[in-house]
């Protein structure tokens, strides 16, 4: 079941085109990522979906309404970049206040516990660290028990440990049946969390696929590097169908190829009693896919 459907969204600010033509749909229960370089139009896209901006053209359907419908505000939780709180408000007060906004709020005690914020309940917002503010922001977005949560750059500014904790939390939220729309520019985050990813560049969707699907588009070229224990002739390996190229750098060998490259190479070497020491295998990553997809002309 489709819960968010964006069709031919376009938005410009004066002369600047922020979003040229963006279409995608999000299914219930999935974690959908919007990935793109800075200034690609990610934030404008989610702001339109959150009903904070009116698109110049195109349509956005969310659940059974259209973006901006007041009824959606109880069903969609939003965590934005640059949405702060009053410095002198404590964490607890913020949660209690925001709980009164929703007809059926979640238990904030449970939420802050999951987010590791319980020791900070009496702390004022202004005294929280960046990561703590971010986690409070996520808690507030989930406070209304939303069916959909939109999280914009949720781990920006977090240290690596806090980032991993947040990822675990996000997976936990999905397990509760919440559909998640995630904006990010972290490859690792998108790869770890998202079921599907829309790559946006210069205001357009340049690819929409699963993380694995995107990686495949970058080609399945692989590189093996190793130091052979015994010298061998190039022909030993270049004859293999999986091997495209063999290079030597001093005593190190680099082999570029595809398919079941590693298995093919190791089998031949083993047959001749050659040990491949210091072996590394490099495969195309989402990083490569991303760079390929968003490379400037």
């Amino acid at each position, binding site marked *: 079941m489709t819960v968010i459907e964006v069709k031919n969204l376009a938005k410009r600010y004066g002369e600047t085109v922020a979003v040229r033509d963006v279409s995608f749909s999000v299914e219930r229960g999935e974690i959908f990522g919007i990935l793109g370089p800075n200034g690609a139009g990610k934030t404008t896209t989610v702001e339109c979906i*959150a*009903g*904070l901006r009116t698109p110049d053209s195109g349509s956005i359907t969310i659940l059974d309404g259209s973006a901006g419908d*007041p009824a959606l*505000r*109880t069903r*969609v*939780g*939003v965590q*934005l970049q*640059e*949405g*702060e*709180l*009053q410095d*002198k*408000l404590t964490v607890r*007060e913020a949660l*209690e*206040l*925001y709980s*009164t*906004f*929703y*007809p059926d709020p979640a238990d904030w005690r449970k939420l802050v516990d999951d987010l590791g914020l319980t020791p900070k309940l009496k702390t004022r917002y202004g005294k929280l660290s960046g990561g703590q503010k971010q986690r409070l922001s996520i808690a*507030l*977005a989930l406070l*209304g028990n939303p069916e959909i949560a939109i999280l914009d750059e949720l781990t920006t500014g977090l240290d690596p440990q806090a980032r991993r904790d947040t990822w675990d939390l996000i997976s936990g939220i999905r397990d509760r049946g919440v559909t998640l729309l995630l904006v990010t520019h972290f490859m690792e985050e998108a790869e770890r969390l998202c079921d599907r990813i829309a790559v946006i560049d210069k205001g357009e969707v340049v690819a929409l696929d699963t993380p694995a699907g995107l990686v495949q588009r970058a080609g399945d070229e692989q590189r093996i590097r190793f130091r052979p224990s015994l010298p061998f002739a190039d022909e030993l390996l270049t004859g293999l169908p999986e091997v495209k190229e063999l290079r030597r750098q001093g005593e190190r060998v680099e082999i570029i190829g595809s398919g079941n490259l590693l298995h093919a190479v190791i089998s031949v070497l083993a047959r001749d009693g050659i040990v491949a020491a210091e072996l590394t295998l490099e495969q195309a990553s989402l990083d490569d896919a991303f760079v390929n997809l968003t490379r400037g002309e």
Partner: protein
Amino acid sequence: MTVFLKLLRTEMKISLRDPLYAFFTLLFPVLLIAILGNVPTMQEAPPELGGLRVIDLYAGLALGLAIGIIGLQGLPAVLATYRERGILRRLATTPVRPGLLLGAQLTMNLITVLISAVLVYTVANLAFDVPIPESPLLFLLAVLLNCSGAFAIGLLLAAVAPSGKTANAIGTFLFFPLMFFAGLWAPRELMPEVLQRIGDFTPLAAGQDMMTDALLGHSPELISITVLLGYLVICGAAAVKFFRWE
């Protein structure tokens, strides 16, 4: 309604956590009266004051001071900061409209003025025999209109200022001349004619006139009411027109 009350309570708590705000709006006006009341010349009643002593006027001026600080400095700085830091924007994603927070801020400031009024007049009356206003209702109306003039200007500042700091700077810049015309440094009644006439058209002076009239039990001057309502309507409308939520 419960959401509004919760917002109001929260705003009140937050503002009282700002020691400067609490001091200048609640304590400073009372302190001013307590100090001025002990200055012998304050007990004099120059004929221009129509039977009032200087200290009687200063009770109103102390309250006007609180209104000026709140309306011209506190309110615009807080609201511009709420916009600047995305507090209104965050609220816009919830079922609550950000306008409700503005409403809570205005109400909170109005309540602060009323508390300040009770404090000032209680001390002024008990310690220095400043009369309780002959027409309490007219006096309340005068306080409300005085607030509406200053708050409307504050809202307009919040609407056009790019940041909380700028809003506060412009507010402070306006505060001193407006308080001057209201008579903080020398009562209006003792000013040269030309300064009095200019003062007629400034909000805190018009508010001060209304409060003085109510203190004496006189009906308010038409010009005071017109000027204050004028500020309310013109600045209020401009604020609504120019206000940016982010």
